[in-house]
């Protein structure tokens, strides 16, 4: 059983490396400057607020701890402009929606983490058309979200 549960994690890490290896060596900020490799987190909780702002969107979630208390975490994401062009807005992720996030806590030890992988509890990615391919939107897929009115 153990190997069955660890296998997808290994694949996930490999894909993460494929992704990062394929990207240019430039970004708004160095994630390594902000987040602590010694403090990995797995967060599950309901969305309380979406800050649809640049340079990074921040998604707030309420996480129930084992001791029965609840704390709010802020999860750092990418630029909202990309998703606006694909028809998603801050209202696409409603408060109360439960999500799962894995990432690393910020070095300042506040309740912040990078949204290394943000999914719904069943593992499907946020902000995907219902066909879930993530393929470039060409209008051929009737399940693609509609563009906002301009």
């Amino acid at each position, binding site marked *: 059983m153990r190997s069955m*549960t660890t296998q*997808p*994690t290994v694949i996930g*890490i490999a*894909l*993460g*490396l494929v992704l*990062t290896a*394929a*990207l240019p*060596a*430039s*970004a*708004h*900020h*160095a*994630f*390594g*400057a*902000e*987040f*602590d*490799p*010694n403090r*990995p987190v*797995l967060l599950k909780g309901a969305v309380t607020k979406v800050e649809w*702002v*640049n*340079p*990074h969107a921040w998604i707030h979630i309420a996480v129930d701890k084992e001791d029965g208390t609840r704390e709010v975490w802020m999860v*750092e*994401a*990418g*630029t909202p*402009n*990309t*998703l606006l*062009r694909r028809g998603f807005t801050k209202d696409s992720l409603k408060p109360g929606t439960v999500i799962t996030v*894995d990432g*690393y806590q*910020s*070095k*300042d*030890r506040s309740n*912040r983490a*990078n*949204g*290394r*992988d*943000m*999914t719904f509890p*069943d*593992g499907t*990615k946020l*902000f*995907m058309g219902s066909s879930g*391919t993530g*393929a*470039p939107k060409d209008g051929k897929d009737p399940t693609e979200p509609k563009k906002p009115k*301009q």
Partner: protein
Amino acid sequence: MPGRMPTLLALALLTLAIRSPAAGQETPSKTWTVPRTPDGHPDLSGNYDTATLTPLERPARFGDKLFLTAEEAAAIENEELTLSEELARPSDPEREAPPVGGDGSPGPYGNVGGYNFFWIDRGTEVFELDGRRRTSILVDPKNGQLPPFTPEAAKRAAARRALYKENAGENTGEAWWLDIEGPGPYDDPEQRPLGERCLLGFGSTSGPPSLPVLYNNLKRIVQTRDYVVILVEMVHDVRIIPLNREHAPKEIRKWMGDSVGHWEGDTLVVDTTNFGKTPALFSASENLHVVERFTRVAEDTILYRFTVEDETVWTEPWSGEYPWVATDEPLYEYACHEGNYSFGGILRGARLLEAEAAEKRK
């Protein structure tokens, strides 16, 4: 019969004439004429998407080859599509937190990874000019690689790499900089990269020269008789380019340099000098000199060409070109400073790690 051959020939020629504009994007067709402003110059105004899968520097496997075959282009585009499909697949719902000590992510992903691929928008195609797809934006040097650094620039680059380890993948979560001579990388907010500080977009997206980056590759050009303005979506950088003027005095230095433009025939030529100490272009110095050429070559395309000179950094000038493709997409607000929580977090994090290290050493 004698009359039939010329008819066939005419038909064949007509077919060729109809087909060639589609194959030769920036060769103006006989039917298309460039729209002009009331003062008679080509109208460059509009919104443009500059994203492309063609990189600045040519992948080594293509050597001196500037053009891609259809198969090579399809392979690059399929690779991107496959990657985006792979990364869109569901994750394990029972997954655990990533590994302690870091996930090994390289570069700016600094051993902790970034965020999901659906935030990225770097285009879906390699670019095409004159009907031929390109291996690189760089056209000179002919090998498609940036020229070597001068010895002094190489020394500066090595010192920068050593100081900004976290920007280059090495991230241990410790205040290692307490053990080095001189200032550390987090001592002063003004030491941090311009992108991190929301002063300019990263990766020379503002330019000059303007280069494609991971996302937000849209530009808007507004043109009058006396000025051309380029609004860059990323960080809301705005270049205001007066036409037919002298440069500002040398002591006046600007983040994006001092740009002046003039028309050479139907091409807008923009000359930029007077940069500050850290231009948007990686490794460049205040001695940077950039010449850009904007030519509207089709209804939906501006051919953007540029030459970069900085003899204190590169051993020879270098040049590149790629299309800016018209789009009906709007540009969105950026307001980078308002949401830049990362920057405070980075500096607070450094202070906290330093305090912890000091405590341990007591």
